[in-house]
């Protein structure tokens, strides 16, 4: 215990040293004033002291856990709360019901602002689910995911401003364009190993933004495309309130649709191949899985969702410009996937809602948002790489009826 204290004090001192120039000193070279913020030093010391104790405790727990799962062959002995809720129908059903009711009445009882925010959050839910396929299932770290989102948004913006094509026609086109770009960009980088892939996709994301910025004839450059119509409903003339409510329901359907499709794919030949690819590329190929097709499939399918909601994003904002498609957005979606648990659908939904809504409602928190994202990514990787809600292990049942028929 005493030793523990001593170590924490040392850590605190180290961090006081480390943060001293940046946290305590602030110079104004113009007026030649130095501001000494000694209080910050106190906070750093206290914070580092406490955190180092927590850190060590968490590390001990982590090591315990990993050695446990090595020795006993069942690590389901202590399922997390999330998993328990998901697996126990007694809790699961009413929770689902309440959620459904809240979801349905939400835009009717809150004001348009909250509904509008919720639409944005739902857009990020779909983005998270889409990236979850590429990163979580297939293990292809994509740092330029936002490029496909931009493809969708600009597809609608361009189709609409040049040829007056409407939302509903643009929606599938946006998705397909996303997928197409996914394949086009995926082809050259098939052979790249994980971390190279990450950097190249980061490059693609930046290139996409620069091209949009510079190619004025098509993308209208930095000026952006304005006056994009909101989603229509049989040519009905809607006020902004009803349009927002309508977009909200549309997004709810979209999320359900995404979950449905993703789930089906996850539990299929394709989904299993994606997971195998993530686990061990060489073994996967040696077992007869066509790497190129599988990778491209994962890439394109993830991109498809980004393209699809890109269209909705453009319709919701009615205005798009390149500034909405920066690396920060890619990082945001990635932290949603990481926080939610790679491969887990419920986890990703919760993470998206938390990460998007929290800064909106806790304005004071907004400033610290990116700081928190960064910390969350590090801490999750170290202490809970499986995410808040781990991917539930699927059990397959054999149908007794068909057993004979198959062996014949």
């Amino acid at each position, binding site marked *: 215990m005493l030793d523990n204290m001593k170590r924490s004090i040392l850590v605190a001192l180290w961090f006081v040293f480390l943060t001293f120039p940046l946290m305590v000193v602030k110079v104004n070279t113009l007026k030649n004033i130095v501001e000494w913020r000694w209080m910050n030093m106190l906070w750093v010391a206290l914070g580092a002291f406490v955190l180092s104790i927590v850190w060590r405790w968490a590390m001990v727990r982590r090591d315990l856990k990993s050695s446990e*799962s090595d020795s006993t*062959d*069942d*690590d389901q002995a202590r399922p997390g709360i999330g998993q328990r809720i998901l697996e126990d129908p007694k809790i699961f059903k009413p929770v689902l019901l309440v959620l459904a009711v809240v979801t349905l009445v939400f835009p009717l009882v809150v004001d348009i602002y909250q509904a509008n925010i919720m639409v944005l959050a739902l857009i990020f839910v779909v983005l998270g689910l889409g990236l979850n396929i590429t990163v979580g299932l297939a293990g292809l770290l994509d740092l330029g995911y936002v490029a496909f989102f931009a493809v969708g948004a600009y597809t609608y913006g361009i189709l609409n401003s040049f040829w007056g094509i409407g939302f509903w026609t643009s929606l599938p086109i946006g998705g397909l364009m996303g997928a197409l770009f996914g394949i086009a960009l995926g082809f050259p980088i098939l052979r790249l190993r994980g971390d190279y892939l990450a950097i190249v996709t980061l490059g693609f994301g930046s290139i996409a933004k620069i091209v949009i910025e510079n190619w004025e004839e098509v993308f209208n450059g930095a000026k952006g495309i304005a006056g994009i119509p909101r989603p229509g409903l049989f040519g009905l003339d809607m006020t902004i309130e009803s349009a927002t409510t309508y977009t909200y329901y549309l997004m709810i359907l979209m999320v359900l649709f995404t979950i449905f*499709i993703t789930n*089906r*794919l996850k539990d*299929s*030949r*394709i*989904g*299993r*191949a994606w*997971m*195998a690819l993530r*686990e*061990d590329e*060489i*073994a*996967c*190929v*040696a*077992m*007869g*899985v*066509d*790497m190129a097709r599988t990778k491209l*499939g994962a890439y394109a*399918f993830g991109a498809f969702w980004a393209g699809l909601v890109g269209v909705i994003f453009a319709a919701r904002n009615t205005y798009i410009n390149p500034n909405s498609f920066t690396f920060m957005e890619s990082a945001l979606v990635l932290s949603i996937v990481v926080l939610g648990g790679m491969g887990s659908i419920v986890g990703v939904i919760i993470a998206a809602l938390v990460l998007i809504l929290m800064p909106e409602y806790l304005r004071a928190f907004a400033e610290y948002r990116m700081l928190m994202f960064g910390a969350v990514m590090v801490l999750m990787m170290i202490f809970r790489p499986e995410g808040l809600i781990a991917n539930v*292990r*699927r*059990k*397959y*049942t*054999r*149908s007794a009826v*068909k*057993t004979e028929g*198959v*062996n014949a």
Partner: protein
Amino acid sequence: MPETKKKLLEVKGLTMDFGGLRAVDAVSLEVSTGEIVALIGPNGAGKTTFFNCVTGIYNPTKGEVLVHPPEKKTQRINGFKPNRVTTIGMARTFQNIRLFHNMTVLENVMIGRHCRTTTSIVGAIMRGASTKRQEQETIEKSYELLKKVGLVNFADEFAKNLPYGAQRRLEIARAMATDPFLLLLDEPAAGMNPQETKALDELIVRIRDTEKIAILLIEHDMKLVMNISERIYVMEYGKEIAQGTPMDIRSNPRVIEAYLGEEADA
């Protein structure tokens, strides 16, 4: 009816260079139906590299790899991607076990069925009758294979949680799921205790006899090799130094020298 022996795999003068280093030097080898053939040699002799060349992980510098699938025409498979080699009908295991750790045991085997099923992305989304049937078949077949290697009770366990010997057997089941006519096993007995080795010995023979799958294996365990294989090839420093029946090999002076020179690896 006695089976007529028919060539399955025919390797002629296979050579593999890495930069200036010749890892495999003009090695020839044949495997026919119903055979268990072993490839032995001291560490670093180039056995695994040979395997990798045959299964498409490396593209050999020189030589021919010919496959004669039963009831199909002969193919030269140099430079084929590993998945195509597997689809033709040659499946392998790995020296340092390469399972899909965070997938269940059953799912590991189901991956082996990938190349024998056809569901596409659209098919998986629609989940039509044929998709469902395929899926069910995959599950059934995989359970059957798990039964054969004695892992059916671990079906829903994560692969990483299996004991070592079971992991090796799971790799064999996974390879068998691809419906091969030839199974390439890379040191299947490595790290096993004598009982496990014996069980493996029986399993390999059973696979040959009841599943009609020919086997080519790399192995260090001399007892296992001598017990079960019909023919043995010996490699040293990338070259083939001997071949023949276990009897021939046991008495071959070059082989003895090679092994003694290496402090009796077996």
